[in-house]
């Protein structure tokens, strides 16, 4: 720890933490060199802190449930189908959708770091980025699922997908029974973030 410096005439001076000071240093350097534009930085923060989130993915899921043509388009080229709804990855990454159902449950992890489909889910939750999830999702997926409150029939196959910088996955969860009369917007409201990562299932009235 750095000792407080009382040599100045400012008894109530500030103290920056090391990451704070280092981040400001990087910004100073990169802006001065013209490598980053402060406005672009603000725009990126605004986007990820406020605008994009799982509500985007929920719309994709609801449309996939309601519109067979869109579901086909997702199967053929998920990146383009999702982009057609206005959701595009900033890193031009390739999107793939994973369909739950027919005895298969898909679940997504990034064992290397925290690759995640930002355009449809926003930034990942803390648990997705945590070392235990990254290590255990592949080694003991059923145990991890149980901790999320998801218990699957024994004969259901669990497939774990490891995201990379190039490929990001969106799980299309199973449409819950009893939702036949709901429209897309009402369905989207049922779709949780975790269900699109594969650590949750969609339920009515949950």
């Amino acid at each position, binding site marked *: 720890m750095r000792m407080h410096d009382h040599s100045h005439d400012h008894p109530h001076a500030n103290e920056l933490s*090391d990451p704070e000071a280092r981040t400001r240093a990087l910004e100073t350097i990169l802006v001065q060199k013209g490598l980053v534009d402060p406005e*672009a930085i603000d725009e990126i923060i605004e986007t990820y802190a406020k605008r994009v989130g799982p509500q985007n993915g929920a719309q994709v899921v609801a449309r996939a449930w309601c519109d067979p043509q869109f579901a086909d388009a997702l199967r053929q080229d998920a990146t383009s189908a999702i982009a057609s709804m206005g959701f595009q990855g900033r890193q031009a990454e390739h999107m793939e959708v994973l369909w739950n159902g027919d005895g298969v449950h898909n679940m997504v992890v990034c064992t290397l770091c925290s690759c995640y489909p930002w355009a449809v889910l926003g930034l990942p939750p803390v648990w997705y980025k945590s070392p235990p999830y990254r290590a255990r999702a592949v080694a003991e997926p059923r145990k991890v699922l149980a901790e999320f409150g998801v218990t699957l029939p024994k004969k259901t196959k669990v497939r774990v997908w490891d995201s990379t*910088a190039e490929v990001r996955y969106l799980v299309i969860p199973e449409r819950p029974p009893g939702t036949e009369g709901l429209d897309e917007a009402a369905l989207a409201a049922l779709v949780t973030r975790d269900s699109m990562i594969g650590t949750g299932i969609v339920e009515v009235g949950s």
Partner: protein
Amino acid sequence: MREPETPFEAPWQAQVFAMTVAMNEAGAFTWTRWADAFGAELQNDKASGNAVYYAAWLRAFVRVLVEDGHATSQEVETLTADWHAAARATPHGQPITLAAVGCSQNA
């Protein structure tokens, strides 16, 4: 379960995240290059949480910048020390700027 989880717990976390994305978008490095560097930093961490996660992010970002020639370690260390000094020279409640230490910013 639609809890609004804030992706950043401190402004610096948002800042370093956004600088990385901006540099990638400007073509300074590919996202694969970034993911490899970041993944390597994360291997050393056992703890969870945004503070640890973004600390690793910050280390990886500095490493990529230095290795790819966008900044030198010396620049980073000097400017970091300048920002610490600026904070200590700034009365509480006033915005911290490098001008507080008469820094020439000639990085």
